[in-house]
């Protein structure tokens, strides 16, 4: 036994000093591969940086748009609210509503694991023509450098040209084996390419998930019954800017067609600051004059509106519907005109501040998209329906006492439907990751208020900007 150990040692010693210079192309391949890795890393960086840039841009855009609040100078306007009279309407300011930005979750491109990790089972090996295993063996060779790949492409091209132009794939797969004058490596490379080609054409079906932010502008179209409109809060159709966001899932059903769904969050609303100092200026009834009203040039927005007093509280007609206030908000003064002998007591609330009304929707879309162009840049047209669930319905008065929730708009339907159309540009950042910018118009088909006196349909134009991951 020790004899054997000695012999093993002598063999080991023999090999200890054994060395042989490897051919020079090995170093060249290594260098090529290292350079390719560096490039890949850099590309990954670029991918991440551009992804981050998209999100930052979207957030900044949202901010900027939200910041425009109050930039429209309040205009002088007149509003006479007396029940017996027709009145001049005011031209107040519509400004927007602060909006929390939903963070988009970025989906990262997973690093593709080297095939060297894969284990393949024997049965597969038996059935495949040019077995996967053989390819695995030569992955090193395949990865050796782009230069090689280009040569390979040229070679494959040449073969395609020599054969009839439309070589059937199935046929093609069988051929390389019989090919004379090609080395085994060449055949493997060709077959590998054919396989890639097959995979590429196979990608007619597949899933894509995405996350996006949509800075946008929302407004509404509204109409009201005359009687309701007489006492309505005025809100110009100025709309407001805000940011929505959400997640989406797409399924590719055909070469150019995709079906998309997801969960989006969006906001709609308007605010009103009727200029109360001019409210009663031309009203002959001096009783309406109220001493505490903000000075004309104080720069403070003030709001006033007709309300109906009842045992339930205060009811006020807003653009989107009747708002019921259970109690008088702080900092709000109620003036009641007792002199008119009408059946209902007419009261007016006045406050230094602003009234706003906010609806929040969670939308479940079902849309189809069609690719007009499908290259590194993809251009899609899309259209579909959304089910919008109202998850937030609040009205606020913001004055010296802060932002007070004064109640909600009555008669708002829980589920509403809207239509969406859009055009999008999608840019492939990598094999799986892509970035899209897509302006969309989303318009509610039904009035979200079920009150027959009110027809209120929000709409929103948003630039859906996000990242998508396909697999």
């Amino acid at each position, binding site marked *: 036994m020790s004899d054997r150990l000695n012999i093993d040692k002598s063999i080991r010693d023999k090999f200890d000093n054994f060395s*042989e210079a490897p051919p020079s192309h090995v*170093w060249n391949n290594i260098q090529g591969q290292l350079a390719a890795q560096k490039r890949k890393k850099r590309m990954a960086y670029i991918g991440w940086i551009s992804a981050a840039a998209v999100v930052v841009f979207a957030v900044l855009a949202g901010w900027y748009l939200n910041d425009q609040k109050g930039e429209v100078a309040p205009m002088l306007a007149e509003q006479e609210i007396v029940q017996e009279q027709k009145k001049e309407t005011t031209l107040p300011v519509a400004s927007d509503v602060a909006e929390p930005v939903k963070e988009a979750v970025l989906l990262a491109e997973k690093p593709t694991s080297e095939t060297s990790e894969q284990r393949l089972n024997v049965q597969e090996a038996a059935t495949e023509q040019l077995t996967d295993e053989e390819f695995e063996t030569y992955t090193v060779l395949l990865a050796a450098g782009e230069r090689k790949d280009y040569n390979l492409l040229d070679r494959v091209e040449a073969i395609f040209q020599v054969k009839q132009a439309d070589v059937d794939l199935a046929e093609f797969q069988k051929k390389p084996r019989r090919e004379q004058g090609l080395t085994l490596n060449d055949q493997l490379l060709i077959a590998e390419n054919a396989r890639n080609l097959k995979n590429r054409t196979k990608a007619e079906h597949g899933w894509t998930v995405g996350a996006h932010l949509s800075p946008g502008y929302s407004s509404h179209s509204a109409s009201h019954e005359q009687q309701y409109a007489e006492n309505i809060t005025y809100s110009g159709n100025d709309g407001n800017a805000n940011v929505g966001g959400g997640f989406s899932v797409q399924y590719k059903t055909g070469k150019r067609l995709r079906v998309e769904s997801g969960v989006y969050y969006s906001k709609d609303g308007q605010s009103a600051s009727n200029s109360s100092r001019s409210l009663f200026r031309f009203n002959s009834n001096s009783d309406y004059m109220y001493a505490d009203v903000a000075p004309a040039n104080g720069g403070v927005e003030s709001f006033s509106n007709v309300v109906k007093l009842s045992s339930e509280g205060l009811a006020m007609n807003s653009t989107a519907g009747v708002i019921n206030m259970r109690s008088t908000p702080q900092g709000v003064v109620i003036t009641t005109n007792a002199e008119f002998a009408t059946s209902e007591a007419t009261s007016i609330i006045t406050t230094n501040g602003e009234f706003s009304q906010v609806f929040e929707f969670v939308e479940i879309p079902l849309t189809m998209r069609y690719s007009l162009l499908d290259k590194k840049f993809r251009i899609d047209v899309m259209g579909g329906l959304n089910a919008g669930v109202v998850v937030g319905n609040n009205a606020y008065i913001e004055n010296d006492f802060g932002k007070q929730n004064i109640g909600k708009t009555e008669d708002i339907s829980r589920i509403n439907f809207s239509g969406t159309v859009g055009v999008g540009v999608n840019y492939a950042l990598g094999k799986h990751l892509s970035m899209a910018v897509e302006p969309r118009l989303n318009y509610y088909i039904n009035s979200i208020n079920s009150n027959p006196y009110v027809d209120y349909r929000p709409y929103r134009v948003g630039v859906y900007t996000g990242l998508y991951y396909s697999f």
Partner: protein
Amino acid sequence: MAKYYKLGLILIFAEHLHYKLKDLKKIIAGCASGNIRAQETLYHKFAPTMFGVCLRYAKDKSEAEDSLQEGFIKVFQNIGNFRHEGSFEGWMRRIMVNVSLEKYRKEQLMYPVEDMTVLEGQQISDDILADISARELMELIQQLPPRYRMVFNLYVMEGMNHKEISEEMKISEGTSKSNLARARDILKRKVKELYREVGKSNTTA
């Protein structure tokens, strides 16, 4: 006078060794930060020895080249993790062996398991393996069936025991033992054949 001369030589040698070690450390640090020049220096310094390792584990030159390439890529990827605790050459060598093992594991699925029957015939002394040159023995090792080649290399060259080999190769210890015995047997026969041929050609010449 002669005494001083000797001491001087020793000092020079020590200095040289120190310099070399520092040099290697520098090169390694350079590789870790992705310096191409350092990578090239490292490659040229160690490639011949490592190619020798890869050759033993491969069936032919081109497979050994593949292993060497893959191994060096791994070396450069992981060189930042080298802690200078053991010999750097040993660390590299371990990577080459691992790459070869990985290759074998992947390939073994394609090959049917070789039969284990021990060849009949007279026993040949192990001494015969000690007499042959490294290059000749290398060729014979390459001709061994993959599994025998692996076991032989891991046991004899890397000094692994059968338990370790069985874990690395996902075979039983018994199989490892019998594979080693069979590898030795084949090698000895081949060496003998080689000598006979040499003898023949000598007589005919």
